[in-house]
Protein backbone atom coordinates (compact mmCIF):
# COMPACT_ATOMS: atom_id res chain seq x y z
CA UNK A 1 0.00 0.00 0.00
CA UNK A 2 1.06 3.57 -0.53
CA UNK A 3 1.81 5.85 2.34
CA UNK A 4 -1.78 6.94 2.69
CA UNK A 5 -2.59 3.25 2.86
CA UNK A 6 -4.85 3.61 -0.15
CA UNK A 7 -4.24 1.33 -3.13
CA UNK A 8 -2.74 2.85 -6.24
CA UNK A 9 -5.44 3.51 -8.81
CA UNK A 10 -3.42 5.10 -11.58
CA UNK A 11 -3.25 3.19 -14.82
CA UNK A 12 -1.49 3.55 -18.14
CA UNK A 13 -2.96 2.80 -21.53
CA UNK A 14 0.06 3.12 -23.75
CA UNK A 15 0.96 6.79 -23.63
CA UNK A 16 -2.22 7.70 -21.82
CA UNK A 17 -1.92 8.12 -18.08
CA UNK A 18 -5.05 8.13 -15.98
CA UNK A 19 -5.10 8.95 -12.29
CA UNK A 20 -7.72 6.27 -11.90
CA UNK A 21 -9.39 3.92 -14.36
CA UNK A 22 -12.85 5.52 -14.17
CA UNK A 23 -13.75 7.28 -17.42
CA UNK A 24 -17.04 8.84 -18.44
CA UNK A 25 -18.35 7.59 -21.79
CA UNK A 26 -18.87 9.81 -24.78
CA UNK A 27 -22.37 11.18 -25.18
CA UNK A 28 -23.51 10.38 -21.69
CA UNK A 29 -21.74 13.11 -19.75
CA UNK A 30 -22.02 16.03 -22.18
CA UNK A 31 -18.97 18.11 -21.31
CA UNK A 32 -19.31 17.55 -17.60
CA UNK A 33 -20.92 20.88 -16.78
CA UNK A 34 -24.24 19.40 -15.68
CA UNK A 35 -22.49 16.87 -13.51
CA UNK A 36 -20.25 19.37 -11.81
CA UNK A 37 -23.41 20.39 -9.96
CA UNK A 38 -23.10 17.13 -8.11
CA UNK A 39 -19.40 16.59 -7.56
CA UNK A 40 -15.89 17.63 -8.46
CA UNK A 41 -15.46 16.01 -11.85
CA UNK A 42 -11.70 16.55 -11.81
CA UNK A 43 -11.58 13.48 -9.55
CA UNK A 44 -12.51 11.28 -12.47
CA UNK A 45 -9.89 9.39 -14.44
CA UNK A 46 -11.13 11.25 -17.50
CA UNK A 47 -14.26 12.51 -19.11
CA UNK A 48 -14.92 11.74 -22.74
CA UNK A 49 -16.74 14.53 -24.52
CA UNK A 50 -19.77 14.07 -26.73
CA UNK A 51 -18.59 13.09 -30.23
CA UNK A 52 -17.90 16.23 -32.22
CA UNK A 53 -18.15 16.46 -35.97
CA UNK A 54 -16.77 19.07 -38.33
CA UNK A 55 -20.05 20.92 -38.71
CA UNK A 56 -22.80 21.09 -36.18
CA UNK A 57 -25.24 18.15 -36.46
CA UNK A 58 -28.98 18.32 -35.83
CA UNK A 59 -29.32 14.73 -34.75
CA UNK A 60 -32.19 12.38 -35.45
CA UNK A 61 -35.91 12.86 -35.45
CA UNK A 62 -37.52 12.47 -32.00
CA UNK A 63 -38.45 10.47 -30.05
CA UNK A 64 -34.89 9.44 -29.35
CA UNK A 65 -35.15 7.47 -26.16
CA UNK A 66 -36.99 4.32 -25.27
CA UNK A 67 -36.41 2.26 -22.20
CA UNK A 68 -36.30 -1.51 -22.48
CA UNK A 69 -35.77 -4.22 -19.85
CA UNK A 70 -32.74 -2.96 -17.91
CA UNK A 71 -31.63 -1.08 -20.98
CA UNK A 72 -32.00 2.16 -22.87
CA UNK A 73 -32.39 2.59 -26.60
CA UNK A 74 -31.17 5.90 -27.95
CA UNK A 75 -31.11 7.35 -31.42
CA UNK A 76 -29.61 10.75 -30.70
CA UNK A 77 -27.72 10.76 -33.98
CA UNK A 78 -24.71 12.64 -32.68
CA UNK A 79 -26.39 16.02 -32.22
CA UNK A 80 -23.53 18.41 -31.48
CA UNK A 81 -22.39 21.98 -32.03
CA UNK A 82 -19.40 21.16 -34.21
CA UNK A 83 -15.73 21.07 -33.36
CA UNK A 84 -15.12 24.83 -33.60
CA UNK A 85 -17.81 25.51 -31.08
CA UNK A 86 -16.28 22.88 -28.83
CA UNK A 87 -12.89 24.48 -29.00
CA UNK A 88 -14.10 28.01 -28.52
CA UNK A 89 -17.06 27.68 -26.18
CA UNK A 90 -16.96 24.38 -24.33
CA UNK A 91 -13.29 23.55 -23.88
CA UNK A 92 -12.47 26.58 -21.73
CA UNK A 93 -15.30 25.64 -19.36
CA UNK A 94 -14.10 22.06 -19.02
CA UNK A 95 -10.62 23.32 -18.36
CA UNK A 96 -12.00 25.53 -15.61
CA UNK A 97 -13.28 22.40 -13.97
CA UNK A 98 -9.80 20.84 -14.19
CA UNK A 99 -11.19 17.72 -15.77
CA UNK A 100 -8.95 15.41 -17.76
CA UNK A 101 -10.35 15.26 -21.25
CA UNK A 102 -10.67 12.66 -23.93
CA UNK A 103 -12.06 14.39 -27.00
CA UNK A 104 -14.37 12.22 -29.05
CA UNK A 105 -14.44 12.82 -32.78
CA UNK A 106 -16.84 11.71 -35.45
CA UNK A 107 -16.45 12.08 -39.19
CA UNK A 108 -18.35 10.72 -42.15
CA UNK A 109 -15.21 10.11 -44.14
CA UNK A 110 -11.49 9.77 -43.81
CA UNK A 111 -11.17 13.29 -45.16
CA UNK A 112 -13.50 14.65 -42.50
CA UNK A 113 -11.46 12.99 -39.77
CA UNK A 114 -8.39 14.64 -41.24
CA UNK A 115 -10.06 18.03 -41.12
CA UNK A 116 -11.19 17.38 -37.57
CA UNK A 117 -7.61 16.56 -36.64
CA UNK A 118 -6.47 19.84 -38.19
CA UNK A 119 -9.00 21.71 -36.09
CA UNK A 120 -7.91 19.87 -32.95
CA UNK A 121 -4.28 20.66 -33.70
CA UNK A 122 -5.05 24.27 -32.89
CA UNK A 123 -5.98 23.44 -29.32
CA UNK A 124 -3.38 24.80 -26.93
CA UNK A 125 -4.55 23.24 -23.69
CA UNK A 126 -3.72 19.73 -22.70
CA UNK A 127 -5.96 16.91 -23.92
CA UNK A 128 -5.32 13.36 -22.76
CA UNK A 129 -6.35 11.72 -25.99
CA UNK A 130 -8.74 11.84 -28.88
CA UNK A 131 -11.22 9.03 -29.28
CA UNK A 132 -12.35 8.17 -32.80
CA UNK A 133 -15.96 7.13 -32.76
CA UNK A 134 -16.02 4.58 -35.57
CA UNK A 135 -18.96 2.73 -34.12
CA UNK A 136 -22.05 4.89 -33.73
CA UNK A 137 -25.08 2.89 -34.87
CA UNK A 138 -27.26 6.01 -35.14
CA UNK A 139 -25.92 7.71 -38.24
CA UNK A 140 -26.24 6.77 -41.87
CA UNK A 141 -22.77 7.64 -43.00
CA UNK A 142 -19.64 6.70 -41.16
CA UNK A 143 -20.14 5.37 -37.67
CA UNK A 144 -20.67 1.66 -37.41
CA UNK A 145 -19.95 1.14 -41.07
CA UNK A 146 -16.34 2.11 -40.49
CA UNK A 147 -15.58 -0.47 -37.92
CA UNK A 148 -16.97 -3.24 -40.08
CA UNK A 149 -14.15 -2.36 -42.49
CA UNK A 150 -10.88 -2.96 -40.67
CA UNK A 151 -8.82 -1.39 -43.47
CA UNK A 152 -10.77 1.84 -43.07
CA UNK A 153 -10.13 1.80 -39.34
CA UNK A 154 -6.42 1.77 -40.13
CA UNK A 155 -6.69 4.48 -42.74
CA UNK A 156 -8.60 6.83 -40.48
CA UNK A 157 -6.28 6.22 -37.57
CA UNK A 158 -3.26 6.94 -39.75
CA UNK A 159 -4.70 10.14 -41.13
CA UNK A 160 -5.44 11.44 -37.65
CA UNK A 161 -2.06 10.34 -36.27
CA UNK A 162 -0.27 12.05 -39.14
CA UNK A 163 -1.64 15.35 -37.97
CA UNK A 164 -1.94 15.04 -34.22
CA UNK A 165 0.61 13.94 -31.72
CA UNK A 166 -2.02 13.34 -29.10
CA UNK A 167 -2.67 9.68 -28.26
CA UNK A 168 -5.53 8.16 -30.24
CA UNK A 169 -8.19 5.79 -28.93
CA UNK A 170 -10.37 3.89 -31.40
CA UNK A 171 -13.89 3.09 -30.30
CA UNK A 172 -15.26 -0.13 -31.71
CA UNK A 173 -18.67 -1.66 -32.11
CA UNK A 174 -20.12 -4.88 -30.72
CA UNK A 175 -22.30 -5.18 -33.82
CA UNK A 176 -19.66 -6.72 -36.02
CA UNK A 177 -18.63 -10.28 -35.37
CA UNK A 178 -15.61 -10.95 -33.17
CA UNK A 179 -13.37 -11.66 -36.14
CA UNK A 180 -13.88 -8.19 -37.53
CA UNK A 181 -13.61 -6.63 -34.10
CA UNK A 182 -10.23 -8.28 -33.55
CA UNK A 183 -9.06 -7.36 -37.04
CA UNK A 184 -10.14 -3.76 -36.51
CA UNK A 185 -8.25 -3.57 -33.25
CA UNK A 186 -5.12 -4.84 -35.00
CA UNK A 187 -5.55 -2.29 -37.75
CA UNK A 188 -6.09 0.44 -35.20
CA UNK A 189 -2.77 -0.55 -33.66
CA UNK A 190 -1.06 -0.55 -37.04
CA UNK A 191 -2.48 2.89 -37.63
CA UNK A 192 -0.86 4.12 -34.44
CA UNK A 193 -3.71 3.96 -31.93
CA UNK A 194 -2.82 3.80 -28.28
CA UNK A 195 -5.96 2.06 -27.01
CA UNK A 196 -9.39 0.67 -27.86
CA UNK A 197 -12.72 1.72 -26.39
CA UNK A 198 -15.16 -1.14 -26.32
CA UNK A 199 -18.17 -1.25 -26.66
CA UNK A 200 -20.41 1.26 -28.31
CA UNK A 201 -24.15 0.48 -28.21
CA UNK A 202 -25.80 -2.56 -29.77
CA UNK A 203 -28.34 -2.04 -32.52
CA UNK A 204 -31.85 -2.49 -31.17
CA UNK A 205 -35.43 -1.41 -31.63
CA UNK A 206 -38.86 -1.43 -30.01
CA UNK A 207 -42.43 -1.04 -31.20
CA UNK A 208 -45.48 0.76 -29.88
CA UNK A 209 -48.08 -1.90 -30.62
CA UNK A 210 -50.98 0.30 -29.62
CA UNK A 211 -50.23 2.86 -32.32
CA UNK A 212 -48.39 0.39 -34.56
CA UNK A 213 -45.25 2.43 -34.96
CA UNK A 214 -41.64 2.23 -33.88
CA UNK A 215 -40.81 3.73 -30.49
CA UNK A 216 -37.93 5.70 -31.97
CA UNK A 217 -38.24 8.31 -34.67
CA UNK A 218 -35.26 6.65 -36.33
CA UNK A 219 -36.69 3.07 -35.97
CA UNK A 220 -33.31 1.58 -34.99
CA UNK A 221 -31.32 2.81 -32.02
CA UNK A 222 -28.42 1.82 -29.86
CA UNK A 223 -28.93 -0.28 -26.74
CA UNK A 224 -26.98 0.54 -23.59
CA UNK A 225 -27.30 -0.10 -19.88
CA UNK A 226 -27.18 -3.13 -17.57
CA UNK A 227 -28.91 -5.32 -20.17
CA UNK A 228 -25.78 -5.31 -22.34
CA UNK A 229 -23.20 -5.75 -19.59
CA UNK A 230 -22.68 -9.50 -20.11
CA UNK A 231 -22.18 -8.93 -23.83
CA UNK A 232 -19.77 -6.04 -23.31
CA UNK A 233 -17.80 -8.03 -20.77
CA UNK A 234 -17.49 -10.96 -23.19
CA UNK A 235 -16.23 -8.61 -25.92
CA UNK A 236 -13.65 -7.13 -23.56
CA UNK A 237 -12.56 -10.61 -22.50
CA UNK A 238 -12.29 -11.81 -26.08
CA UNK A 239 -10.27 -8.82 -27.23
CA UNK A 240 -8.14 -8.90 -24.11
CA UNK A 241 -7.13 -12.45 -24.91
CA UNK A 242 -5.71 -11.20 -28.20
CA UNK A 243 -3.30 -8.83 -26.47
CA UNK A 244 -3.48 -6.17 -29.12
CA UNK A 245 -3.94 -2.86 -27.32
CA UNK A 246 -4.98 -1.64 -23.88
CA UNK A 247 -8.70 -1.12 -23.55
CA UNK A 248 -11.31 1.08 -21.96
CA UNK A 249 -14.12 -1.38 -21.29
CA UNK A 250 -17.69 -0.16 -21.12
CA UNK A 251 -21.27 -1.29 -21.46
CA UNK A 252 -23.77 -1.42 -18.61
CA UNK A 253 -21.41 -0.55 -15.80
CA UNK A 254 -23.52 0.78 -12.92
CA UNK A 255 -21.69 -0.23 -9.76
CA UNK A 256 -18.13 -0.71 -8.58
CA UNK A 257 -18.73 -4.45 -8.73
CA UNK A 258 -19.37 -4.15 -12.44
CA UNK A 259 -16.22 -2.09 -12.83
CA UNK A 260 -14.14 -4.76 -11.10
CA UNK A 261 -15.59 -7.43 -13.38
CA UNK A 262 -14.35 -5.49 -16.41
CA UNK A 263 -10.91 -4.94 -14.90
CA UNK A 264 -10.54 -8.63 -14.09
CA UNK A 265 -11.57 -9.53 -17.64
CA UNK A 266 -8.88 -7.31 -19.11
CA UNK A 267 -10.09 -3.73 -19.31
CA UNK A 268 -7.32 -1.30 -18.35
CA UNK A 269 -9.88 1.35 -17.59
CA UNK A 270 -13.66 1.36 -17.54
CA UNK A 271 -16.28 3.68 -18.96
CA UNK A 272 -19.54 4.70 -17.35
CA UNK A 273 -22.35 5.68 -19.68
CA UNK A 274 -26.05 5.23 -19.10
CA UNK A 275 -25.64 4.94 -15.32
CA UNK A 276 -24.87 8.68 -15.28
CA UNK A 277 -28.48 9.36 -16.27
CA UNK A 278 -29.81 7.79 -13.10
CA UNK A 279 -27.17 8.09 -10.41
CA UNK A 280 -25.61 11.43 -11.04
CA UNK A 281 -22.66 10.74 -8.71
CA UNK A 282 -21.99 7.23 -9.91
CA UNK A 283 -18.47 8.08 -11.09
CA UNK A 284 -17.27 9.04 -7.64
CA UNK A 285 -19.00 6.09 -6.05
CA UNK A 286 -17.26 3.68 -8.38
CA UNK A 287 -13.82 5.16 -7.74
CA UNK A 288 -14.38 4.69 -4.04
CA UNK A 289 -15.87 1.24 -4.48
CA UNK A 290 -12.96 -0.05 -6.52
CA UNK A 291 -10.50 1.38 -4.03
CA UNK A 292 -12.32 -0.20 -1.09
CA UNK A 293 -12.50 -3.51 -2.92
CA UNK A 294 -8.75 -3.54 -3.44
CA UNK A 295 -8.18 -2.67 0.19
CA UNK A 296 -10.51 -5.41 1.37
CA UNK A 297 -8.48 -7.88 -0.67
CA UNK A 298 -5.17 -6.41 0.47
CA UNK A 299 -4.18 -5.47 -3.06
CA UNK A 300 -2.06 -2.34 -3.22
CA UNK A 301 -2.35 -1.60 -6.92
CA UNK A 302 -5.30 -1.78 -9.29
CA UNK A 303 -2.94 -2.93 -12.05
CA UNK A 304 -2.58 -6.23 -10.20
CA UNK A 305 -6.17 -7.20 -10.97
CA UNK A 306 -6.30 -6.00 -14.56
CA UNK A 307 -6.65 -8.97 -16.87
CA UNK A 308 -6.35 -11.46 -14.04
CA UNK A 309 -9.08 -13.60 -15.60
CA UNK A 310 -7.98 -13.20 -19.20
CA UNK A 311 -4.86 -14.34 -21.00
CA UNK A 312 -3.64 -10.80 -21.04
CA UNK A 313 0.01 -9.99 -20.73
CA UNK A 314 -0.26 -7.74 -17.78
CA UNK A 315 1.51 -4.45 -18.23
CA UNK A 316 3.61 -3.79 -15.17
Amino acid at each position, binding site marked *: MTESNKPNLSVRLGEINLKNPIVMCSGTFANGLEYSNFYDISELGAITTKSYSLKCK*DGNKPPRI*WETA*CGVLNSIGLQNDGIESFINDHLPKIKDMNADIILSLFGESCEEFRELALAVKKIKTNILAVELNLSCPNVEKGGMIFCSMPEVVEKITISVKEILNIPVIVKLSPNTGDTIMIESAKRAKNGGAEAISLINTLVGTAVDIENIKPRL*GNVLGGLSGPAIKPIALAKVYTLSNENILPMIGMGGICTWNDAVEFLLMGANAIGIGTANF*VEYCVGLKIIKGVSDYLESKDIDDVNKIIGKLSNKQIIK
Partner: protein
Amino acid sequence: MKLLKEEILNNEKYGENLYKMEIFSPYICRNAGAGQFISVKCSREKIFDPMLRRPFSIYDIEKEFNVFSILYLVKGRGTYLLSLLKKGDTVDFIGPLGNPIAFNMNSNDYLLIGGGIGIAPLYLITKVLTSEKKNVLFIAGFKNSNFAGIEKDLLKTKAYYKIFTEDGSYGNSGLATDFIKENINKYNKYQFYCCGPVDMLKALQEIFLGKKISATAIVEQRMACGIGACMGCAIGIKNEDGEIIYKRVCKDGPSFNIMEVIFD
Protein backbone atom coordinates in the same frame (compact mmCIF):
# COMPACT_ATOMS: atom_id res chain seq x y z
CA MET B 1 -31.36 21.16 -8.69
CA LYS B 2 -30.54 18.55 -6.09
CA LEU B 3 -30.69 14.79 -5.69
CA LEU B 4 -33.03 14.10 -2.79
CA LYS B 5 -34.45 11.23 -0.79
CA GLU B 6 -37.55 12.44 0.95
CA GLU B 7 -40.48 11.07 2.87
CA ILE B 8 -43.84 10.40 1.32
CA LEU B 9 -46.62 11.92 3.41
CA ASN B 10 -49.43 10.58 1.31
CA ASN B 11 -50.01 8.61 -1.88
CA GLU B 12 -53.70 9.13 -2.38
CA LYS B 13 -55.86 7.58 -5.06
CA TYR B 14 -57.58 10.35 -7.04
CA GLY B 15 -59.25 8.18 -9.61
CA GLU B 16 -58.69 4.99 -11.50
CA ASN B 17 -54.91 4.72 -11.99
CA LEU B 18 -54.64 8.31 -10.80
CA TYR B 19 -52.68 9.24 -7.69
CA LYS B 20 -51.50 12.31 -5.88
CA MET B 21 -48.26 11.85 -4.00
CA GLU B 22 -47.38 14.35 -1.30
CA ILE B 23 -43.73 14.64 -0.45
CA PHE B 24 -42.05 16.47 2.39
CA SER B 25 -39.25 18.61 0.99
CA PRO B 26 -38.24 22.03 2.24
CA TYR B 27 -35.70 22.25 -0.57
CA ILE B 28 -38.23 21.82 -3.37
CA CYS B 29 -40.73 24.12 -1.67
CA ARG B 30 -38.09 26.81 -1.40
CA ASN B 31 -36.59 26.45 -4.85
CA ALA B 32 -39.20 25.22 -7.31
CA GLY B 33 -41.43 27.33 -9.52
CA ALA B 34 -44.53 26.62 -11.55
CA GLY B 35 -43.82 24.64 -14.70
CA GLN B 36 -40.86 22.78 -13.26
CA PHE B 37 -40.70 19.06 -12.73
CA ILE B 38 -38.95 16.36 -10.75
CA SER B 39 -37.54 13.07 -11.96
CA VAL B 40 -38.18 10.01 -9.83
CA LYS B 41 -36.36 6.72 -9.46
CA CYS B 42 -39.21 4.22 -9.42
CA SER B 43 -37.35 0.96 -8.88
CA ARG B 44 -36.00 -0.35 -5.61
CA GLU B 45 -32.37 -0.10 -4.67
CA LYS B 46 -30.19 -2.71 -6.44
CA ILE B 47 -32.89 -3.30 -9.04
CA PHE B 48 -32.29 -1.85 -12.50
CA ASP B 49 -35.68 -2.36 -14.05
CA PRO B 50 -36.98 0.18 -14.77
CA MET B 51 -33.71 1.98 -14.83
CA LEU B 52 -34.43 5.51 -15.97
CA ARG B 53 -36.03 8.10 -13.77
CA ARG B 54 -39.55 9.27 -14.60
CA PRO B 55 -40.43 12.96 -14.99
CA PHE B 56 -43.46 14.46 -13.22
CA SER B 57 -44.62 18.04 -13.06
CA ILE B 58 -44.85 19.70 -9.73
CA TYR B 59 -48.57 19.80 -9.12
CA ASP B 60 -48.72 21.79 -5.95
CA ILE B 61 -46.46 23.39 -3.39
CA GLU B 62 -47.62 24.08 0.13
CA LYS B 63 -44.77 26.23 1.38
CA GLU B 64 -46.17 26.56 4.86
CA PHE B 65 -45.96 22.79 5.38
CA ASN B 66 -42.82 22.17 3.30
CA VAL B 67 -44.87 19.80 1.22
CA PHE B 68 -45.17 19.52 -2.53
CA SER B 69 -47.07 17.05 -4.62
CA ILE B 70 -47.20 15.34 -7.98
CA LEU B 71 -50.34 14.08 -9.70
CA TYR B 72 -49.72 11.01 -11.81
CA LEU B 73 -51.40 8.44 -13.97
CA VAL B 74 -50.30 4.82 -13.83
CA LYS B 75 -49.17 4.05 -17.38
CA GLY B 76 -46.39 1.48 -17.30
CA ARG B 77 -44.05 -0.21 -14.87
CA GLY B 78 -42.51 2.98 -13.44
CA THR B 79 -45.74 4.60 -12.39
CA TYR B 80 -47.09 1.23 -11.28
CA LEU B 81 -44.20 0.89 -8.83
CA LEU B 82 -44.79 4.45 -7.62
CA SER B 83 -48.41 3.66 -6.91
CA LEU B 84 -47.32 0.87 -4.55
CA LEU B 85 -45.42 3.26 -2.29
CA LYS B 86 -46.94 4.11 1.03
CA LYS B 87 -46.95 6.95 3.53
CA GLY B 88 -43.62 6.82 5.35
CA ASP B 89 -41.71 5.32 2.43
CA THR B 90 -38.87 7.28 0.91
CA VAL B 91 -38.82 8.51 -2.65
CA ASP B 92 -35.58 9.18 -4.56
CA PHE B 93 -35.83 12.09 -6.98
CA ILE B 94 -34.02 15.00 -8.51
CA GLY B 95 -35.45 18.47 -8.81
CA PRO B 96 -36.50 21.03 -9.52
CA LEU B 97 -35.78 20.45 -13.22
CA GLY B 98 -36.59 22.55 -16.27
CA ASN B 99 -37.32 26.22 -16.30
CA PRO B 100 -39.93 27.84 -14.15
CA ILE B 101 -42.48 29.70 -16.20
CA ALA B 102 -41.53 33.33 -16.76
CA PHE B 103 -44.95 34.88 -16.27
CA ASN B 104 -45.82 38.00 -18.13
CA MET B 105 -47.26 39.77 -15.14
CA ASN B 106 -48.30 42.76 -17.23
CA SER B 107 -51.33 40.86 -18.32
CA ASN B 108 -54.37 40.50 -16.14
CA ASP B 109 -56.19 37.64 -17.82
CA TYR B 110 -54.98 34.10 -18.13
CA LEU B 111 -56.51 31.09 -19.79
CA LEU B 112 -55.22 27.68 -18.81
CA ILE B 113 -56.10 24.68 -20.96
CA GLY B 114 -55.35 21.21 -19.72
CA GLY B 115 -56.12 17.85 -21.26
CA GLY B 116 -56.05 14.68 -19.20
CA ILE B 117 -53.00 14.41 -16.97
CA GLY B 118 -51.80 17.59 -18.71
CA ILE B 119 -53.60 19.53 -16.01
CA ALA B 120 -50.79 18.56 -13.61
CA PRO B 121 -48.50 21.57 -14.14
CA LEU B 122 -51.45 23.93 -14.57
CA TYR B 123 -52.62 23.71 -11.02
CA LEU B 124 -49.54 25.34 -9.57
CA ILE B 125 -49.72 27.99 -12.31
CA THR B 126 -53.29 28.66 -11.23
CA LYS B 127 -52.24 29.05 -7.64
CA VAL B 128 -49.39 31.41 -8.47
CA LEU B 129 -51.55 33.60 -10.70
CA THR B 130 -54.56 33.76 -8.41
CA SER B 131 -52.33 34.61 -5.47
CA GLU B 132 -51.19 37.56 -7.59
CA LYS B 133 -54.87 38.49 -7.97
CA LYS B 134 -54.94 37.66 -11.65
CA ASN B 135 -58.09 36.61 -13.44
CA VAL B 136 -57.67 32.91 -14.24
CA LEU B 137 -59.97 30.74 -16.32
CA PHE B 138 -59.05 27.06 -16.19
CA ILE B 139 -60.46 24.87 -18.96
CA ALA B 140 -59.96 21.17 -18.42
CA GLY B 141 -60.85 18.42 -20.85
CA PHE B 142 -61.07 14.74 -19.93
CA LYS B 143 -62.31 11.52 -21.47
CA ASN B 144 -64.61 10.78 -18.56
CA SER B 145 -65.18 11.50 -14.90
CA ASN B 146 -61.95 9.87 -13.71
CA PHE B 147 -60.34 13.22 -12.98
CA ALA B 148 -63.30 14.55 -10.98
CA GLY B 149 -61.11 14.48 -7.89
CA ILE B 150 -59.14 17.52 -8.98
CA GLU B 151 -62.18 19.76 -8.63
CA LYS B 152 -61.70 19.83 -4.88
CA ASP B 153 -58.25 21.29 -5.45
CA LEU B 154 -59.50 23.88 -7.96
CA LEU B 155 -62.17 24.96 -5.50
CA LYS B 156 -59.39 25.98 -3.13
CA THR B 157 -58.23 28.64 -5.60
CA LYS B 158 -59.90 31.78 -6.84
CA ALA B 159 -59.83 30.58 -10.44
CA TYR B 160 -62.88 30.20 -12.65
CA TYR B 161 -62.97 26.81 -14.18
CA LYS B 162 -64.90 24.70 -16.64
CA ILE B 163 -64.53 20.95 -16.92
CA PHE B 164 -65.39 19.10 -20.13
CA THR B 165 -65.72 15.37 -20.52
CA GLU B 166 -65.92 13.62 -23.87
CA ASP B 167 -68.52 11.19 -22.62
CA GLY B 168 -70.42 13.86 -20.72
CA SER B 169 -70.20 11.93 -17.48
CA TYR B 170 -68.90 14.93 -15.57
CA GLY B 171 -69.03 18.69 -16.04
CA ASN B 172 -69.82 19.87 -19.55
CA SER B 173 -70.08 17.45 -22.40
CA GLY B 174 -67.68 17.87 -25.30
CA LEU B 175 -64.12 18.77 -26.12
CA ALA B 176 -62.28 21.55 -24.32
CA THR B 177 -60.73 22.53 -27.65
CA ASP B 178 -64.17 22.99 -29.21
CA PHE B 179 -65.01 25.41 -26.45
CA ILE B 180 -61.81 27.34 -27.11
CA LYS B 181 -62.43 27.34 -30.86
CA GLU B 182 -65.90 28.79 -30.44
CA ASN B 183 -64.87 31.42 -27.96
CA ILE B 184 -61.41 32.27 -29.14
CA ASN B 185 -62.31 35.85 -30.01
CA LYS B 186 -63.48 36.45 -26.48
CA TYR B 187 -60.12 35.42 -25.10
CA ASN B 188 -57.61 36.68 -27.64
CA LYS B 189 -56.12 39.15 -25.20
CA TYR B 190 -55.54 36.43 -22.60
CA GLN B 191 -52.22 34.78 -21.90
CA PHE B 192 -52.60 31.06 -22.65
CA TYR B 193 -50.90 28.13 -20.89
CA CYS B 194 -51.61 24.76 -22.43
CA CYS B 195 -50.69 21.22 -21.48
CA GLY B 196 -52.12 17.97 -22.69
CA PRO B 197 -51.92 15.24 -25.29
CA VAL B 198 -50.28 15.99 -28.61
CA ASP B 199 -53.58 15.95 -30.47
CA MET B 200 -54.94 18.64 -28.20
CA LEU B 201 -51.88 20.84 -28.57
CA LYS B 202 -52.03 20.44 -32.34
CA ALA B 203 -55.69 21.42 -32.34
CA LEU B 204 -54.81 24.49 -30.32
CA GLN B 205 -52.02 25.43 -32.74
CA GLU B 206 -54.61 25.36 -35.49
CA ILE B 207 -57.04 27.49 -33.54
CA PHE B 208 -54.35 30.04 -32.70
CA LEU B 209 -52.90 30.09 -36.21
CA GLY B 210 -52.83 33.58 -37.69
CA LYS B 211 -54.16 35.12 -34.51
CA LYS B 212 -52.04 37.32 -32.30
CA ILE B 213 -52.24 35.05 -29.30
CA SER B 214 -49.52 34.57 -26.74
CA ALA B 215 -49.62 30.92 -25.78
CA THR B 216 -47.19 28.72 -23.93
CA ALA B 217 -47.27 24.94 -24.22
CA ILE B 218 -45.77 22.70 -21.57
CA VAL B 219 -44.63 19.67 -23.51
CA GLU B 220 -43.54 16.12 -22.81
CA GLN B 221 -40.80 14.09 -24.33
CA ARG B 222 -39.19 10.84 -23.29
CA MET B 223 -36.11 11.58 -21.25
CA ALA B 224 -32.96 9.83 -20.20
CA CYS B 225 -30.86 12.15 -18.04
CA GLY B 226 -33.35 14.94 -17.29
CA ILE B 227 -30.53 17.44 -16.76
CA GLY B 228 -29.54 18.41 -20.27
CA ALA B 229 -26.63 16.04 -20.81
CA CYS B 230 -27.86 13.41 -23.26
CA MET B 231 -29.82 15.21 -26.01
CA GLY B 232 -32.44 12.52 -25.62
CA CYS B 233 -35.48 14.69 -25.00
CA ALA B 234 -35.19 16.67 -28.21
CA ILE B 235 -38.23 18.37 -29.66
CA GLY B 236 -38.37 20.25 -32.95
CA ILE B 237 -38.69 24.01 -32.53
CA LYS B 238 -39.16 26.36 -35.46
CA ASN B 239 -36.84 29.30 -34.97
CA GLU B 240 -37.35 32.81 -36.31
CA ASP B 241 -35.93 31.91 -39.72
CA GLY B 242 -38.38 29.04 -40.03
CA GLU B 243 -35.60 26.54 -39.54
CA ILE B 244 -36.30 23.56 -37.33
CA ILE B 245 -33.82 23.06 -34.54
CA TYR B 246 -33.89 20.51 -31.79
CA LYS B 247 -34.18 21.75 -28.25
CA ARG B 248 -34.09 19.81 -25.04
CA VAL B 249 -37.40 19.59 -23.20
CA CYS B 250 -35.60 18.99 -19.91
CA LYS B 251 -33.18 21.92 -19.99
CA ASP B 252 -34.53 24.36 -22.58
CA GLY B 253 -38.19 23.63 -21.72
CA PRO B 254 -40.53 22.20 -20.76
CA SER B 255 -42.43 25.37 -21.74
CA PHE B 256 -42.22 26.71 -25.28
CA ASN B 257 -44.19 29.10 -27.42
CA ILE B 258 -46.85 26.73 -28.68
CA MET B 259 -46.64 28.07 -32.25
CA GLU B 260 -43.00 27.13 -32.52
CA VAL B 261 -43.30 23.50 -31.48
CA ILE B 262 -43.23 20.70 -34.05
CA PHE B 263 -45.43 17.87 -32.89
CA ASP B 264 -45.06 14.71 -34.94
